[in-house]
């Protein structure tokens, strides 16, 4: 079943049907038991009445008056019958109502005061309730005779009452089921309305009619909608970065191409051509490198798991130890193993790799990589610091190195495009800040502050 409301409605219907069915059966059983108890009480009273009316005649035989207090005993086929049997099961007396009929066989009771009650059929098949009561009748002083009084009542009245009750009971239960299911359906419709709204809004997003999901969803859906919005934002930012990178790439390549075209048109000498060609090829290469690396940044990934920083930093430092094996700088990693980064591993490698590579290029002997979490106005930050003991960067040069305010010219001698790529990653993708100052080691200290929201995205 693919519909949520279908599933919920089916489950609710099954539970409701089971509950109401069991309730109906229990009530039916209880009513039947109480009806039978009432019949038994009534028959018991009739037995007592017969006992009171019974007498012994002069011959010691049991007699009962022709006109009994209960008129139905005197009317044939009235539905109320009685007889009396002796200890051997021989019939001593029966009521006039039993004319032409016989009460069904009923095991003779052996002990005085014993009562038996059962639903049985008469000789003509009429369903009856029969109650038998045994007494020890004193027929002469110290001489007793075992007698069993039996009273039976036709089940017509009982069945009428039972059917009437059942009609009422099941009718009400069915009505209640229909009403409850209708209410359930309405509740489901109301409860699932936000989900339908999500689907409608996603359709609108696909059609380009809206940019993201609304924010006024019930709290159970908030994590879903917030993360969906973050995912949408992430892919939009990614696309934007690609677009900008391509636009910048096209723009930046056209200038050296124009220079080359101009040189060709001017009929430059072979040596001049060679020099200009070399310069422009180098320029184009740097531009392509920079823009491609910038575009390749993945950015903060919605739903991304926290990534421990230490293993990534160790990988980078191990790689640099190989590359700079001749100079053998002392590369220290001072990062708490619990420090984590919320984003793409490739981005973290790019930041750490470029900063540590620059530090290795310029250091005399020492490079230190540090990272620690921080708080910035309620938003979590990861602060990455890379220091060296090289010549450092003169004051006033840092903004130039970081290329602030420049769009796509990363050419700063000695630092390659690494620093510019890191700046773009930190400031444009992770909305943080990249700063350069002097390290206590004597050289430069580059500090990258990467910002994350409270939930890590």
């Amino acid at each position, binding site marked *: 079943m693919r519909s949520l409301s279908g599933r919920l409605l089916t489950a609710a219907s099954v539970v409701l049907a089971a509950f109401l069915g069991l309730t109906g059966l229990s009530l039916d059983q209880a009513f039947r038991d109480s009806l039978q108890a009432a019949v038994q009480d009534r028959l018991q009273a009739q037995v007592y009445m017969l006992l009171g009316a019974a007498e012994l005649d002069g011959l010691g035989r049991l007699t009962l008056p022709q006109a009994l207090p209960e008129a139905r005993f005197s009317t044939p086929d009235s539905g109320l019958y009685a007889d009396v049997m002796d200890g051997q099961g021989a019939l001593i007396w029966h009521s006039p109502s039993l004319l032409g009929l016989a009460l069904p066989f009923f095991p003779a009771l052996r002990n005085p005061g014993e009562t038996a009650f059962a639903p049985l059929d008469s000789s003509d098949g009429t369903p009856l309730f029969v109650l038998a009561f045994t007494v020890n009748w004193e027929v002469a002083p110290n001489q007793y005779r075992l007698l069993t009084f039996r009273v039976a009542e036709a089940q017509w009245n009982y069945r009428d009452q039972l059917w009437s009750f059942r009609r009422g009971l099941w009718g009400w239960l069915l009505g209640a089921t229909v009403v409850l299911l209708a209410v359930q359906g309405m509740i489901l419709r109301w409860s699932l309305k936000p989900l339908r709204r999500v689907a409608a809004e996603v359709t609108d997003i696909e059609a380009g009619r809206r940019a993201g999901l609304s924010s006024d969803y019930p709290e159970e859906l908030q994590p879903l909608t917030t993360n969906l919005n973050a995912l949408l934002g992430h892919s939009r930012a990614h696309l934007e970065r690609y677009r900008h990178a391509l636009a910048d790439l096209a723009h930046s390549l056209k200038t050296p191409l124009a220079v080359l075209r101009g040189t060709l048109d001017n009929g430059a000498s072979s040596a001049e051509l060679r020099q200009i060609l070399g310069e422009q090829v180098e320029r184009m290469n740097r531009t392509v490198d920079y823009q491609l*690396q910038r575009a*390749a940044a993945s950015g903060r990934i919605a739903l991304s798991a926290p990534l421990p920083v230490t293993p990534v930093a160790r990988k980078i430092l191990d790689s640099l130890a*190989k590359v700079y094996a001749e100079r053998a700088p002392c590369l220290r990693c001072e990062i708490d193993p619990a420090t984590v980064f919320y984003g793409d*591993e*490739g981005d973290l*490698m*790019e930041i750490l790799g470029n900063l540590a590579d620059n530090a290795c290029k310029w250091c005399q002997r020492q490079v230190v990589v540090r990272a620690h979490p921080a708080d910035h106005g309620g938003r979590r930050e990861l602060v990455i610091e890379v220091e060296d003991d090289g010549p450092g960067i003169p004051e006033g040069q840092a903004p130039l190195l970081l290329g602030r305010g420049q769009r796509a010219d990363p050419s700063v001698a000695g630092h390659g495009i690494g620093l510019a790529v890191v700046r773009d990653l930190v400031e444009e993708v992770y909305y943080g800040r990249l700063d350069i100052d002097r390290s206590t080691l004597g050289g430069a200290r580059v500090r990258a502050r990467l910002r994350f929201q409270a939930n890590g995205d």
Partner: protein
Amino acid sequence: MRILIIEDEAPLLERVAAQLRAQGYAVDTAANGRDGLYCGQEYPLDAAVVDLGLPDLSGIDVIRRWRSGGQRFPVLILTARGRWQDKVEGLEAGADDYLVKPFHMEELQARLRALIRRTGGWTQAVLCCGPVALDTGAQQLTLEGQVVELTAYEYKLLEYLMLRAGTVVSKTELTEHLYEEDADRDSNVLEVLVGRLRRKLDPGRDLNPIETLRGRGYRFRLERSNA
């Protein structure tokens, strides 16, 4: 020095090979990963230049197989992908250095020289043993500060011996490392070259920088002044 280049771009392969040959290297080439893997396993190489984006067997896999097979020669990777993730992957696989395409030939040569020097335990570009100083960057020999002219083969032979200063180098090893696989090899040429080097390095016949160990080979016997 014998170098293997694995590169699937034929023009680039030819250009790099030609320039390295011009620098005095014996160069073997392979245009795909499988051939390159075989060459690395079978030839006595001093270094290898491996492009990462090879068609059949990636450069990373080639390096991993060499390293797991016990090949220890230094490997320089060439990659068009400048991301640190790719560089780290290559270096973790067993490469010793990387170069991002496009590159200057001078940069490639400098990196290769540094890698080869490192294998011999040298950290400086100038190999100094007593009065003999060999500048591997400028490919220039000086004896007590005076420049000594060398032919290309004399330079190759001296560089190989000085990089392994103090250790015995057999004639077979010298032949294998100085000549390409299909080159015409004549051990008499080696003896002539060693003789000429001795005369240039030791005009006074009192230094004896290259000693002959009969049946075993040659040894550059002057002690390293820097490392």
